[in-house]
């Protein structure tokens, strides 16, 4: 009975294997199995949180002297909440995909890959140690690669998949370096802080993280460790400068965007740095860096979102921006606020992406918002749920996003005025670009034939929208409870590293500022876009439209340099080494051959002379020298 929770992982894995192995030709059955597997995972997540299920015993994987690695099951409060988010949003996305992917020739493969993704993601959440997390971390990279490149016949999709995989791999490299350093310093690979003190290298006098921090001998290594681990987060959570893969990843089917680029995969990075928060918190320089990267990302992405025209890309940049808020919160010492925002964001961003999918479905796969317009009458259910999602994201008072964003702003308010100022400004920008998207898509005149003939999506698609919208509306205050739960968790888990009391001082001012920011953005967007103009009245800003040329620079600089090095090495191999070692020795041999040929004259007398000479020398040797 105690093994039951393992089905959380086993069910999606089995689903993926069974579909890949036998069901690629029967899409409906495949979809059913995949949805069922996800439902089982969701049920177990519920059982862990609210029922009597407890975490099962870990399974040993590698047991060598000096290296023991297990596959464990972590079900503490943090993991429980994350499991609910992942499986809950995942289940709705599965159901939604049943309709969205209907008729696609790869539907069965899609569901197999979706199940593989769920397996990998859940593995990250329940990991008890670094190696286990890294294994599933890599598998998430793989399954997202498969899902982004699902329509691999399309060049853009195949390229986006490749980009996502490689950029993530750069982050993974840092993560691996961080893990090995961590292990070298503490002698353990477990997340549980209790083992950090027990398993440390007593010969060096390390008994806790605080000792590590105090010992100047390890100053360099703890920085390597911290920056390495955070690099893992930068790859997965798409922080600047490793952000480039996320917007491109929108080439995948829309449910994939909703699942992995809103609720789960990108959240894994934030989850990871919250899970190991103390390891990062011992390095103040790193914390400053994390906050700065978060701040840069949130502002940068919001600015780019202002001038994008593709509905999914706007949402993608808004995801980047929101992830920036979360990472900044961790850097400012408020992991609870980050996790809180992660949770609320997962729901309303999934809602927005699925809503966008419904719009795109209605528009026959048109994604340009300037070809839409007037859709509110045509697809009312999508419209109303989109209203909720937009309001929640932009911080409409007393909806989900309002509370979580306010917590992050509070963390900045205490002692970080610069961060606070820019974060509040970005809140206004967020409100502006989201309402721009919203007004242009749903209001004004229909700007294309597709828009005129749009019709509502099937129930399997709008039902998940409605279900996701409900918590964002009526359970706004309920989310505050979740925020408190996260605070309690971090207080208990890492008492030495979390500031003693969460201060509410200034809450009134912060709340007022965030409402003002929301209204400012909404007002500006309404002034420009409410009437539904035919084209963007904002002056075009080429740097913004071109995402500040970063992709361009990467493509040319990085690839050019790398290709140059590669070609140079190839040449070295081919000419230098080949010439010196091989031609050189070949020349040596052929010269030797020329010399030896002098003896092979074909002249009988010469041979006879040489033979007698040899015999004479041999006799001389035997007779006189031995």
């Amino acid at each position: 009975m105690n093994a039951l929770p393992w089905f959380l992982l086993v069910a999606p894995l089995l689903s993926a294997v069974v579909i890949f192995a036998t069901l690629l030709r029967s899409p409906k059955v495949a979809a059913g199995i995949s949805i069922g597997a996800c439902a089982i995972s969701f049920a177990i997540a519920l059982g862990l949180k609210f029922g009597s299920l407890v975490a099962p015993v870990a399974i040993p994987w590698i047991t060598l002297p000096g290296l023991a690695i297990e596959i464990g099951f972590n079900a503490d409060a943090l993991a429980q909440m994350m499991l609910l988010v992942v499986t809950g949003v995942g289940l709705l996305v599965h159901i939604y995909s049943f309709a969205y992917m209907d008729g696609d020739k790869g539907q069965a493969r899609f569901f197999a890959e979706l199940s593989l993704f769920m397996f990998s993601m859940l593995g990250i959440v329940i990991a008890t140690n670094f190696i286990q997390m890294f294994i599933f971390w890599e598998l998430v990279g793989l399954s997202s690669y498969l899902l982004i490149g699902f329509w691999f016949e399309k060049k853009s999709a195949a390229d986006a998949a490749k980009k996502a995989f490689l950029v993530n791999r750069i982050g993974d490299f840092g993560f691996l370096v961080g893990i090995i350093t961590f292990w070298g310093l503490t002698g353990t690979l477990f997340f549980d802080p209790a083992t950090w003190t027990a398993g440390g290298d007593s010969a060096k006098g390390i008994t806790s993280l605080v000792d590590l921090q105090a010992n100047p001998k390890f100053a360099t290594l703890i920085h390597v460790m911290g920056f390495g681990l955070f690099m893992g987060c930068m790859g997965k959570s798409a922080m600047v400068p490793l952000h480039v893969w996320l917007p491109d990843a929108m080439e995948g089917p829309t449910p994939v965007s909703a699942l992995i680029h809103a609720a789960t995969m990108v959240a894994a990075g934030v989850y990871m740095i919250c899970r190991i928060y103390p390891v990062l918190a011992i390095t103040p320089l790193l914390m400053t860096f994390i906050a700065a990267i978060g701040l840069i990302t949130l502002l940068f992405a919001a600015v780019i979102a202002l001038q994008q025209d593709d509905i999914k890309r706007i949402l993608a940049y808004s995801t980047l921006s929101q992830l920036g808020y979360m990472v900044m919160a961790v850097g400012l010492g408020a992991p609870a606020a980050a996790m809180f925002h992660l949770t609320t964001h997962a729901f309303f961003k999934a809602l927005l992406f699925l809503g966008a999918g419904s719009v795109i479905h209605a528009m026959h796969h048109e994604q340009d918002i300037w070809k839409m317009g007037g859709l509110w009458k045509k697809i009312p259910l999508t419209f109303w749920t989109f209203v909720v999602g937009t309001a929640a994201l932009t911080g409409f008072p007393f909806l989900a996003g309002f509370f979580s964003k306010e917590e992050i702003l509070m963390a900045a308010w205490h002692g970080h005025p610069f961060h606070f100022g820019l974060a509040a400004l970005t809140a206004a920008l967020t409100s502006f670009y989201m309402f721009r998207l919203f007004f242009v898509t749903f209001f004004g005149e229909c700007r294309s034939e597709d828009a005129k003939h749009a019709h509502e999506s099937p129930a399997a698609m709008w039902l998940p929208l409605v279900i996701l919208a409900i918590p964002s509306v009526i359970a706004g205050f309920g989310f505050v409870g979740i925020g408190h739960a996260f605070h309690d968790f971090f207080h208990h888990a890492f008492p030495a590293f979390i500031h003693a009391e969460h201060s509410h001082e200034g809450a009134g001012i912060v709340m007022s500022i965030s409402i003002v920011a929301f209204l400012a953005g909404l007002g500006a967007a309404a002034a420009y876009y409410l009437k539904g103009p035919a084209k963007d009245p904002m002056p075009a800003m080429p740097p913004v439209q071109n995402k500040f040329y970063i992709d361009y620079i990467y493509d040319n600089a990085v690839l050019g340099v790398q290709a140059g090095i590669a070609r140079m090495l190839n040449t070295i191999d081919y000419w230098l080494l080949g010439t010196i070692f091989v031609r050189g020795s070949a020349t040596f041999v052929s010269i030797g051959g020329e010399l030896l040929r002098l003896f092979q004259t074909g002249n009988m007398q010469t041979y006879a002379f040489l033979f007698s000479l040899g015999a004479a020398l041999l006799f001389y040797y035997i007779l006189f020298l031995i």
Partner: protein
Amino acid sequence: MLPIVPTLLSFAAAVLCLFLPRHSPGLVRWIALATAAAGLSVSLACWCMYDPGQSGFQQVVAVPWVPDMAIWWRTGIDGVSVTMMVLTGLVAVAGVLISWDVEHRRSEFFAWYLVLIGGVYGVFISLDMVLFFIFYEIAIIPKYFLIAIWGGERRTYAAMKLALFSFASSTLVLFSILAMYYGSGSATLDITQLTRASNFSQGFQYAIFPVLFTGFGILAGMWPFHTWAPTGHVAAPPAASMLLAGVVMKLGAYGCLRMAIGTLPAGAQAWAPMFAILALAGILHGALAALAQRDFKYVIAYSSVSHMGFVLLGLCSLDRTGLTGSVLQMFSHGVLSPLLFALVAGIIYSRTHTRDLAVFDRFGERMPVIATFTVVAGLAAMGLPGFSGFVAELHILIGAWRQPAIANVVVVLAGVGIILTAAYTITRLHMAFFQKSVEPPPEVPWPQRFAPPHPREIAICVLLLGFSVWIGLYPSPMLRQIESGLNSIVAHYPTRWR
């Protein structure tokens, strides 16, 4: 007695192949297959019978051979050698299957093939340095003929290059063996004894270790002596590429471990940091060069150099975990690179008749099953969790990290090698299967669908991939075997970190 069987059986079958009547050409390949399969079965039996709880070599056979010169027929197995035997058996079976349709001088082909296999098995069971060297030489000669007679473009150049490098390797090894014979004082060449009580003077070890390690390192593809590998691999017929990458390169690494590191600990400790840098150079050079190739077979060939760099880095760690990872990497690369060679040079090439990635046009749609196998094999070789390469590389990096003599920067840069590996794997797979062709195909347009894989071809993929997955998911049994085999070697090296 059992571990000797595969060697003798392979030699006997090689002779038999040559004397078969000409009018039954099909028989010879069945004989080859039966021999390879028997070798694999015996190796697996040895693997199962090997008891990791006992220390030292097992199933030892020791018969005086040339007693005056202290040369013995001395064979036996430990956890390392038995793992290598299983690897040899696997590659041998897969190699016969991929050569099923060799027409040109078939009997000779399989005769050379079996001699090569027999020599390789012999090296892995040898416990006497001279016997070791004899088998090592036996394994080298057939390579030349397999490439020179049955090879592809530039085969004579490649065969000659390979032969020259191999003889350079042999010369250094032979010199070291002779030196050790005189230097040991006890005039013995018994590897067990020399490993147990290494009594060479420190100065002798400092002098001989680099010679011996370089000698074997040449065959293991150690930078900068790796250049024989890409040309040799590419010019060779598929089965020979598989054997070269799969087991012959492992002979070099095995020699480094068994002879150099096992018997010259003081020399190893002095020189390992230097060789670690060469290993790193191999990792990075191989990966970067692979990134610049458009011939699919060259990509795999350079990736072998890169992966063997990891093997050598693990050896240089001189650490229990690192050495275990190194041997596991030998096994992992030993099954995966032959698989990739079989796919690229055999299965795909037999359909496309070109390996130029620039003319490959979205073959994922034209050969879905083969493409799937190739992508999975590529991801496995890349070190994705769930496959053997990940477990091996993890052990190597951890082992190297805790060796204080190896700078941390070396390990971090080896980690960069992992990024580069991903880069060339993903970009080349994309060129092959998911992208439109960069240049138009040579003559006729590609068919909508290529011929589906033959059951024999699927058998190759499943056999080799199966072992990689098994090790990737449940590495403990094999790690236990390897680790117990390393006990006598790591005893020389102090544990610095726990």
